[in-house]
């Protein structure tokens, strides 16, 4: 047991942070948002040179082997600097492709940063409601079987019928009211050089964007429709593993976004004066930031812990809590900046809008909770001794 970064890991994050600070990401983000990816591509190459994309790719495909801890640390920094582009999607693509015979066509370019990949996930997948047993079980009766969805014969068989796997299940699991024929959206498919679509029949290539980007609440996220008009790469992609890596990366990215929002807001309330004193001396302001700090402080070990052992439930928990903490911090940041924080022109907006977008990307809070509860209910197959009240004995 040693739940601490080592010196090499700290040096790695420190050098990424220094490189990204020097890159001046706000200008890069604004270009990217306008559809001019030149500076974003240049930054992407430097991130690749630092080894980030190789952290999700085995060595025989030119990567560094699978290193989820270092990948998570890198994504904290990418989030902290609000780096634009299909970062998480490139990791997901690398995981989807790495066991295929065609992997060597794709992976070296992703590792080197010459290729950017995006992945369209099923659009508007079903909200994850687990039906309750119809008869409430008595407290002392035999435990009911863990509630699961009814298996849908129309749905392709997945490796494991877990909440995480269901998330990427295509077709029949789409939310009521969504058009099954609508093109799937992929992040930054206009800038990506490798466009993948997860479909009912497997993993396919899309040859081109199927239309102009839709606007995201985060202007740096260009949601581009794709149709799976290209090659079928595999009928049985490792959906769950890709989702696990994507959720780990996005959890770390969200944590970084939250940390940056907190730092910027702390700096602002120290220098902004009203009534003759810094507004950071007012208790209403201080306590809101203390709560944001606490939320981020407890999301961080979940993210690192999920990276150490990337189980789907632990990654879902990290994604849930990191995104919630980032969003809580975003709300505090907006409130404490006042009107200036509400402008697109002020750079804070680049992080504020991302905190909202990441919250639902690659799994809504409810979908993450479902993965957590699926796992927690498994722990009740062999119940331990019924416990008495836990409490008392405090000061």
């Amino acid at each position: 047991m040693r739940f601490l970064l080592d010196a090499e890991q700290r040096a790695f994050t420190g050098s990424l942070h220094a490189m990204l600070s020097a890159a001046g990401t706000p200008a890069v983000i604004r270009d990217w948002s306008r559809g001019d990816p030149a500076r974003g591509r240049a930054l992407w190459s430097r991130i690749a040179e630092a080894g980030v994309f190789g952290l999700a790719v085995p060595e025989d495909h030119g990567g560094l082997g699978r290193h989820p801890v270092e990948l998570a640390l890198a994504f904290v920094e990418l989030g902290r600097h609000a780096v634009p582009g299909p970062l998480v999607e490139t990791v997901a693509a690398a995981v989807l492709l790495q066991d295929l015979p065609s992997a060597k066509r794709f992976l070296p370019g992703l590792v080197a940063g010459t290729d950017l990949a995006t992945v369209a996930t099923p659009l508007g997948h079903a909200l994850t409601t687990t039906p309750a047993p119809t008869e409430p079980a008595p407290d002392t009766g035999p435990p009911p079987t863990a509630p699961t969805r009814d298996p849908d014969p129309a749905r392709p068989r997945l490796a494991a019928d877990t909440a995480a796997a269901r998330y990427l299940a295509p077709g029949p699991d789409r939310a009521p009211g969504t058009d099954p024929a609508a093109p799937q959206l992929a992040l930054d498919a206009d800038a990506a050089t490798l466009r993948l679509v997860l479909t009912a029949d497997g993993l396919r290539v899309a040859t081109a964007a199927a239309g102009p980007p839709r606007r995201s609440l985060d202007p740096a996220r260009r949601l581009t429709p794709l149709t799976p008009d290209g090659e079928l790469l595999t009928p049985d992609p490792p959906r769950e593993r890709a989702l696990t890596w994507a959720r780990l990366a996005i959890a770390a990215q969200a944590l970084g976004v939250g940390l940056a929002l907190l730092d910027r807001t702390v700096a602002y309330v120290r220098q902004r004066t009203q009534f003759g004193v810094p507004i950071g001396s007012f208790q209403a302001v201080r306590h809101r930031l203390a709560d944001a700090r606490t939320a981020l402080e407890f999301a961080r070990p979940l993210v690192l812990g999920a990276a150490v052992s990337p189980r789907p439930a632990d990654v879902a928990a990290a994604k849930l809590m990191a995104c919630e903490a980032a969003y809580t911090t975003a709300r505090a940041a907006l409130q404490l900046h006042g009107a200036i924080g509400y402008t697109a022109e002020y750079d804070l907006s680049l992080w504020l809008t991302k905190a909202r977008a990441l919250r639902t990307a690659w799994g809504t809070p409810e979908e993450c909770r479902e993965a957590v509860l699926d796992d927690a209910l498994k722990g009740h197959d062999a119940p331990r001794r019924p416990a008495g009240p836990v409490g008392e004995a405090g000061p």
Partner: protein
Amino acid sequence: MPAVDLSHSRADEEFRAEARAWLAAHVPRTPLPSLETAEGFAAHRAWEAELAADRWSVVSWPKRYGGRDAGLLRWLVFEEEYWAAGAPGRVGQNGISLLAPTLFDHGTQEQRARVLPPMATGEAVWAQAWSEPEAGSDLASLTSRAVRTDGGWLLRGQKTWSSRAAFADRAFGLFRSDPDAPKPHQGLTYLMFDLRAPGVTVRPIGRLDGKPAFAELFLDDVFVPDEDVIGEPGRGWRIAMSTAGDERGLTLRSPGRFLASAHRLVALWRARGCPEHARARVADAVVGARAYQLFTYAAASRSLEGEELGPESSTNKVFWSELDLALHETALDLLGPEGERADTDWSEGYVFSLAGPLYAGTNEIQRDIIAERLLGLPKGRR
């Protein structure tokens, strides 16, 4: 330097297995009566003796005082097993987690040899005596006096919110020994005293459910011999603050108890048919308990490498107290109308969790500490 590693050593896992087996054989089949009653207090004291007989009451202490020399990680493992086994609350907690660390750091050899063994067996149960009617969050403004006399001190004044004092044997706290010191936190002395000494009047106070969980102490020239002063007279504030750090920090509320509570909450949710209305809150309790466990492992790892934990213990205290409260509120909601009953498996824990944001430094005080010392915000108006 070793890489990040979340697995326990083989020796710690063997320790876990030993603790689990002992607990499985000894934890009472039915929960003990509330320890905030005379009957329950006695039953919990007897449980402390049973733990102590096999050296399970104070595993992190040195062997010569009844412990097992367990390091921080092994203590965390013990706590996980303890609470998972549904074992009783610890009536000796105040002494074990607040006074004992102070004695290890600031006490004399003689004090340790005299005070710690009966604390380990439950023979002497300790209450804390910090707050006063006019000194709560602003503890340094306390006015109870310690007046110099031959061979010791005379205590005069009033303490309040003294947890466990209704049934405990002894107490520890801060007293003003030099009223002329230039600053409020100077001239304070840290003393131990007998709750049955002449001049002590204990008036139990009913907490929200009426049980006498704490008490007022009236002190009328209570004699305390010099041997019961901890550290130098006049230096009590610094000594007490090191104790307060422990209280908020790692040792007061171990992750094991919240993991166990979250496990019970999932069981309750399932037994009630997994109702939709509680789904998010149950999941959040599971995630919160796991976050607290991992946060603690990280803090323990830093501590084992010699880092001071410092003000982050304030984020810790805010987090666990709110987690505990949310978890119990969810349980009561799951119980439905039955949730208002005072005799469910969750009632006592709920009432106790309501106090979490209040004691050991209110959460508002903790947020001030976070703002000032972790975020570097300017000192504020309170």
